[in-house]
């Protein structure tokens, strides 16, 4: 029997929509399901993205989904040493703070215009298989039992990453590769409107605290703590409330939205494809292990996935062997950097506050023309030779 669709995409976040768009554009029949009632809500994101990331994903900036244009980043050490980075030394790494409520809808709308069928309030709770081969999904739609068949299922189900695990791809994480996060969108705060701020050290053990401007006196103020640094339940919100109370710029602020989330900060997986199954975005664990940013890597993968799926729809062969083409494309673009950043993260999380103070102090006084790992280490070498030695092993 002919399947209902060539491709079913589970999850209508940026990675899912960008996969659907590129596949549908080439004529594949695509169903994209979203278990929630609204695409882009509720938020689970700090919303920062670099211009470089958008370029690589092939996404053209539309001002309707931009909350703030960012000129640079501020790195703040535990005792207040400050490193300012702007376009001159951070290049295209500076970028935007998005309005994900609208950004996600814009990408889904592109997918729809390319021919994707979208179903909201429709979930997958399992995969259907015949003789071991994945044949589609089973779940619910508006509370009624729902089933659909396809030649290939795409797991774009975000951090939860259940589709892959149902299909035999192990996406489970160790506690040192999970960051638990809490954030408020705050108003009535006193911040620089065009600088993203990252606060390092024990304010957010194993992670960092952030202030990402959202226009005017608003910003996403949040933090993430590494799983292995958590001592008791509910601590993450407590860390954030303490941080806000202590910061004079924030203490008169009020919350407009509260956001909980977890992100993976893991090394890349060995495989994100199987017969009739492919993963993209957070579900494929391609979040940057240092920054926790995932929109650009996810949409870069989505673009590659959609292109390959669109091609394969011509022949109908979605075997693991055929999907290797996707594995190669995304790995060539992202894998080395993900590995390197994971190893750097493993080292960074061991540094005490005093060392972070020294690092930011040295960097703020050195005149780094272009920000990259090599230049950073060169600048640190004289004052912190032992530290640099440890990092050099990784690169």
């Amino acid at each position, binding site marked *: 029997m002919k399947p209902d669709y060539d491709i079913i995409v589970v999850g209508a976040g940026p990675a899912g929509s960008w996969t659907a768009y590129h596949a549908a554009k080439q004529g594949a029949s695509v169903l994209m399901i979203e278990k929630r009632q609204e695409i882009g809500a509720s938020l689970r994101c700090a919303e920062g993205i670099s211009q470089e990331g958008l370029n690589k994903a092939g996404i053209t900036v539309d001002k309707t989904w931009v909350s703030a244009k960012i000129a640079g980043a501020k790195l703040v050490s535990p005792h207040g040493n400050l490193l300012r980075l702007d376009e001159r030394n951070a290049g295209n790494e500076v970028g935007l703070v998005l309005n994900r409520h609208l950004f996600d809808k814009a990408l889904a709308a592109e997918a729809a215009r390319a021919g994707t069928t979208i179903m909201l309030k429709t979930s997958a709770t399992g995969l259907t298989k015949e003789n071991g081969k994945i044949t589609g999904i089973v779940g619910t739609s508006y509370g009624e039992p729902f089933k659909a068949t396809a030649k290939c299922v795409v797991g774009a189900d975000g951090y939860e990453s259940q589709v892959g695990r149902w299909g035999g791809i192990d996406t489970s994480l160790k506690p040192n590769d999970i960051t638990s996060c*809490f954030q408020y969108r705050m108003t009535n705060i006193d911040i620089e409107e065009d600088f993203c701020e990252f606060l390092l050290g024990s304010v957010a053990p194993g992670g960092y605290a952030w202030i990402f401007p959202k226009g005017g006196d608003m910003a996403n103020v949040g933090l993430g703590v590494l799983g292995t640094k958590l001592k008791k339940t*509910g601590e993450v919100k407590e860390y954030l409330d303490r941080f806000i109370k202590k910061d004079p710029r924030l203490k008169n602020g009020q919350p407009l939205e509260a956001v909980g989330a*977890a992100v993976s900060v893991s090394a890349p997986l060995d495989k994100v494809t199987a017969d009739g199954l492919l993963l993209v975005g957070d579900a494929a664990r391609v979040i940057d292990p240092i920054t926790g940013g995932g929109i650009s890597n996810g949409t870069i993968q989505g673009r590659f996935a959609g292109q390959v799926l669109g091609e394969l729809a011509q022949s109908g062969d979605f075997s693991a062997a055929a999907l290797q083409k996707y594995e190669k494309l995304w790995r060539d673009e992202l894998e080395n950097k993900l590995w390197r950043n994971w190893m750097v993260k493993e080292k960074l999380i061991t540094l005490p506050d005093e060392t972070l103070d020294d690092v930011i102090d040295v960097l703020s006084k050195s005149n780094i023309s272009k920000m990259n790992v090599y230049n950073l280490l060169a600048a640190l070498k004289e004052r912190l030779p032992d530290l640099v030695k440890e990092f050099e092993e990784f690169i």
Partner: protein
Amino acid sequence: MRKADWMKVNVERCMHCGACVGSCPQNAIYLAEVMVEFSDACNRCKRCVKMCPVGAITMEAKA
């Protein structure tokens, strides 16, 4: 007691963010809109209790 009944979620504290779901090594949790559901694959490892950013999950002692 059903295995899944070990786990209690304070629905008024829960952010329905899925931090527990993706952290579960057994893939034993499902987030249905605002409801967190545990399956019998749960092995009482308490990872979800620890990872929840707001402390909405508790585990009861074995009956």
